[in-house]
């Protein structure tokens, strides 16, 4: 930072004097809650790449909505939700269709590029959609995020029990009367909303870091299901807020810091998990 030389503690202390910082902390916190919780089930269900795919489809929606003058959040949401329902209905038929899925994703990104071209906008719009801009979240968007998060968390709480059952033991769950298709479609719809929200924070390209990173780390650190879920949410929150603070201090992009912290968290947890595993297997007779 040219000109002023300020000590870091003072910088941190001034952080909440700015409206945009307060909004960013609120928006980041709201999104992190959802991302941590949804990411936890995403990993258990082995659907992490479905989440990744949804965010790519969302790119076309986000750029398309900018073209017609609607907030990027709603375009993202429309596209991710539509894609989630299709993926849920196709279900197992999508397995081993990597090529088909990849080509549809490329088409979505290609469409996004076309929409950007037609809008003939500056590159900054594209950068915001691709890599997020938490510091630029408006009050309107904040309220939208709050509403979406409440709805998502309520829906997830409603289905979490049969979701867990159907995830761990699909055949048994089906035998007990759980509709696997309903669970699959409704969970993917929840993922779609979470992806659209997370894209506001870290952008469509890096949704993976916010949704999968904290949850993956938590599952390595805590073996109890409940603790792992709480830890996933806590890590997502801690990484987002620390990322914001670091961005404020350094002036580097928030997204970079969040992704870096997510990555570090994951590798530290993996290393610790590997050590624990060695320790427990050694005491076995």
């Amino acid at each position, binding site marked *: 930072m040219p000109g002023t030389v300020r000590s870091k503690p003072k910088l941190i202390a001034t952080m909440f004097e700015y409206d945009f910082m307060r909004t960013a902390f609120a928006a980041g916190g709201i999104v992190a809650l959802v991302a941590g919780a949804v990411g936890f089930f995403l990993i258990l269900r082995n659907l992490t790449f479905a989440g990744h795919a949804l965010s790519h489809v969302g790119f076309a929606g986000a750029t398309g909505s900018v073209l017609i003058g609607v907030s990027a959040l709603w375009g993202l949401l429309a596209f991710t939700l539509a894609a989630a329902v299709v993926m849920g209905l196709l279900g197992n038929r999508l397995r081993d269709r990597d090529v088909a899925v990849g080509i549809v994703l490329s088409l979505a990104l290609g469409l996004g590029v076309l929409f950007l071209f037609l809008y003939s906008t500056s590159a900054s719009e594209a950068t915001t959609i691709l890599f997020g801009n938490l510091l630029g979240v408006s009050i309107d968007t904040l309220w939208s995020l709050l509403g979406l998060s409440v709805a998502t968390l309520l829906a997830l709480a409603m*289905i979490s029990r049969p979701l867990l059952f159907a995830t*761990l033991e699909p055949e048994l769950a089906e*035998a007990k009367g759980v509709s696997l298709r309903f669970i699959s479609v409704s969970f993917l719809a929840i993922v779609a909303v979470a992806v659209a929200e997370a894209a506001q924070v870290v952008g469509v390209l890096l949704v993976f870091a916010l949704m999968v990173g904290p949850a993956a780390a938590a599952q390595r650190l805590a*073996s109890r299901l409940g603790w792992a879920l709480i830890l996933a949410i806590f890590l997502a929150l801690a990484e987002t807020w620390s990322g914001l603070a670091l961005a404020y201090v350094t002036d580097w992009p928030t997204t970079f810091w969040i992704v870096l912290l997510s990555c570090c968290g994951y590798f530290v947890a993996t290393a610790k998990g590997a050590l624990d595993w060695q320790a427990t297997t050694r005491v076995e007779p």
Partner: protein
Amino acid sequence: MDALAARCHRPSTRWLAGCAIELDRATLARGGRIVLDAVSASICPGEFVGIFGPNGSGKTTLLRALLGLPPPLSGAVRVFGRPLRRGNRMIGYLPQQRAGLADLPIRGWDFVASAWQGERWGLPLIGRRGQQQVMQAIDRVEAQALADRRLSQLSGGEVQRLLLAQALLGRPRILLLDEPLISLDPHFQQAIVALVRRIQQTEEITVLFTAHDLNPLLGVMDRVLYLANHQAVIGTVDEVVTDEVLSRLYDMPIAVYRIKDRIAVFAGHGPVEAEAHRHDV
């Protein structure tokens, strides 16, 4: 065949309805293809029945039909005298172990607990009664030491015991066990068979147990149910596992050899049970 099927050789007075399971000219299909055609058989309460047959002969289809997944195309299937319904609490089910299950980072306890009334809406909090039931189920399969370990740290036999604990939740009267011995070493196979036998006898549960090889179950089964060519034969090992009965069922020459207390079944070209131990219908 029908005479054999109709005979309950170990009648029990515990249940008012005579049969635990009754198939009455039931036709079962899987994926639009008829697997079992107008099959009749009845199984008594407290009986241990081994189910055998080549891949695709309908072992899994039969077990799933008893769960109503899906119900028979025609004919009737009754469980304790009542027609089929999905989610029947009387039936405990151990599905074939699917790929990826053993990689889960989930603790043994949480894995078993997920099946306790897992069909209900809301949060997966099972309450004190649920916790008691889960603990009892884990005790019954002697898996206390596995409750705190992750599935990814367990052996195939240990995961199988947790699956059995899930099947026992809610104290069912019938256990449907689909290939619980698959890909286990002989030592662990014997341990699982002995465990199931002990539970079956102390709790008077009816057990249907599918397997590729009948030898691990010899001396434990009350009767065998052989499936092949869309047909079924049920009876004691001595009645069913013979050259004549199996040749007629398979519609090809079958030779049965008894070597000490083991049995080898050969078709024209080789052992019948030597087929790939893979996921089957």
